[in-house]
């Protein structure tokens, strides 16, 4: 059983939902990332999504775009992100780590080299925003052969047929994009999410993490009630953007926000 599957089933047994923070690796500088990951785990994170910066993040809103730009200014790359996971694993063998990014850095590295490196770094899942299952056959088989979960997105306009396809090809969990828009957008409609979740549940037993538009403890609590996990990204990263000269303050505010979400989700 993969670390992700084990984590979700343990959470389900204790009646809790997964808190899944997303940060961009190397933002605001490469030294910030690994200590931040450990701090997030201490603050109640169950799974960490680590963003791999890309020059052209087409599905991201301004907050994560800027995070990518800050990381790339420090020459962050897919290889260096994998090294950060290696560093994280020195002190944490429990928390699942999912790499989230775009396909081209993986293409540049080569699918097989990437899959081998991800295995060596002890990565648990890979979510590639612009790699739908139709184009993912080669990549998915290389990842699955190494016990790494390929994670796919579902959106408000995904048909039942596509839900079934993701259920078949994906593993670990499904990432439900709660709104039509980019990351960090502000028009979340919980009734819509609830409706779509029914259709997803009817077609797959995979856990569902819900993201895009989770801003604070209240939205986290509301969303947690609908799915198996809550993904929060832009709300955390906006703290880094708010204190360009004071990463320590950003770190503290990120922890504070995560703790408030954890508390709201558990009570």
């Amino acid at each position, binding site marked *: 059983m993969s670390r992700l599957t084990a984590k979700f089933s343990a959470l389900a047994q204790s009646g809790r939902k997964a808190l899944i923070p997303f940060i961009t690796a190397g933002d605001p500088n490469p030294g910030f990332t690994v200590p931040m990951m450990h701090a997030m785990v201490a603050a109640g994170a169950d799974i960490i999504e680590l963003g791999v910066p890309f020059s052209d*993040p087409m599905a991201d809103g301004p907050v994560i775009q800027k995070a990518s730009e800050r990381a790339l200014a420090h020459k962050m790359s897919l290889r260096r992100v994998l090294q950060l996971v290696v560093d994280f694993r020195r002190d944490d063998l429990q928390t699942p780590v999912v790499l989230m990014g775009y396909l081209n850095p993986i293409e540049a590295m080569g699918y097989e080299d990437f899959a081998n490196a991800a295995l060596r770094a002890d990565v648990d899942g890979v979510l590639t925003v612009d790699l739908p299952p139709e184009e993912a056959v080669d990549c998915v088989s290389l990842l699955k052969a190494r016990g790494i979960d390929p994670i796919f997105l579902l959106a408000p306009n995904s048909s039942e047929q596509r839900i079934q396809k993701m259920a078949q090809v994906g593993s670990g969990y499904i990432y439900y994009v709660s709104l039509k828009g980019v990351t960090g957008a502000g028009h979340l409609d919980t009734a819509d999410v609830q409706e779509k979740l029914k259709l997803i549940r009817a077609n797959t037993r995979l856990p569902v993490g819900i993201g895009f538009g989770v801003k604070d403890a209240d939205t986290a609590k509301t969303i947690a009630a609908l799915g198996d996990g809550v993904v929060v990204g832009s709300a955390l990263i906006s703290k880094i953007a708010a204190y360009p000269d004071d990463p320590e303050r950003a770190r503290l505010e990120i922890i504070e926000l995560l703790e408030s979400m954890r508390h709201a989700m558990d009570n």
Partner: protein
Amino acid sequence: MTQHYNLPDERGHFGPYGGKFVAETLMQPIQELEEAYHRYLQDAEFIAELDADLQHYVGRPSPLYHAERWSEALGGAQIYLKREDLNHTGAHKINNTIGQALLAKRMGKTRIIAETGAGQHGVATATVAARLGLECVVYMGAVDVQRQSLNVYRMKLLGAKVVAVESGSKTLKDALNEALRDWVTNVDNTFYIIGTVAGPHPYPAMVRDFQTIIGREAKQQCLAQTGRLPDALVACVGGGSNAIGLFHPFIDDASVKLYGVEAAGDGIATGRHSAPLCAGRPGVLHGNRTYLLEDEDGEIIETHSISAGLDYPGVGPEHAWLKDSGRAEYVNITDAEALAGFHDLTRMEGIIPALESSHALAYVTQLAPSMAKDSIIIVNLSGRGDKDIMTLAQHEGIEL
């Protein structure tokens, strides 16, 4: 190539290139678009409306003009210009925007978005949106907004909203990113008119199909004027829509050589260029797999060309396939060579070409002298140069 050319396959692939590499939220709208495109391109009423617009609004057919004086001066092949510069709005771009806007109308979309680099596609989109009474938003890199202020004003006059994109390198690729972000947010009422043969399937095939009017006319006109097929076709390649429009109807004619001309900027060796087919490698960007200019980590790198319309780090996936299969040859021309081509045509034939098209003209000055006097080259004069006068004057240190 003996068998009939019939790409892309049903999944939108040209060999290993093309495809649909988009985030999940865009899968439904591109599926919807693909169905509409397949349906209406077989629909007699749609085709009749498109043909009528191309004739009466765009001004087609565009002439095929024998540049006798220039041919004589170069001392080799006879050169024929396909005059896309004479189209309404001054370039080939409108062939495609007319087609896509008619599709948008059929699909019940009320809002049009587009990306633009030099502004030609933005103007062509704003033009058809004005004519059909559709809301229009054009994304343009902030750097391009600065250097193409004339076209920005034209778009505004036509009623479009122009959004200056401040992210990334603030050029065409970033405008495309921002248009995709808009589309993902407004999928229900919005039609995205992509300006070149890039993007996810069906765009590369659909934009090509709207642009092949160039090659179909050129073939007929060449046969009518000379009684035979040309020996070579030459066109500039940024994204590659004017080139594929000219090439495609000739792909099965093995005797016709196809030359795509990329922008070498300051020279390939300097690294400051826009020539992914000549100096890039395959990767995935903006929804398709194709040749890209990227660093060793797969990050897209900044491009350079004197011509904003060629300033793009990718290229249409069908060109990637035509390169690998050997059917077309891709060459490159520097800024300086393109400027020389610009002046040659202007002074010799009284036609002021766009800087994009000047790259193709400059290659003709190299190719034609090596060919026999009874051989024929058709070069796509994809746009007129009025929009480039300021750039040119600035480059030559002239104050207007």
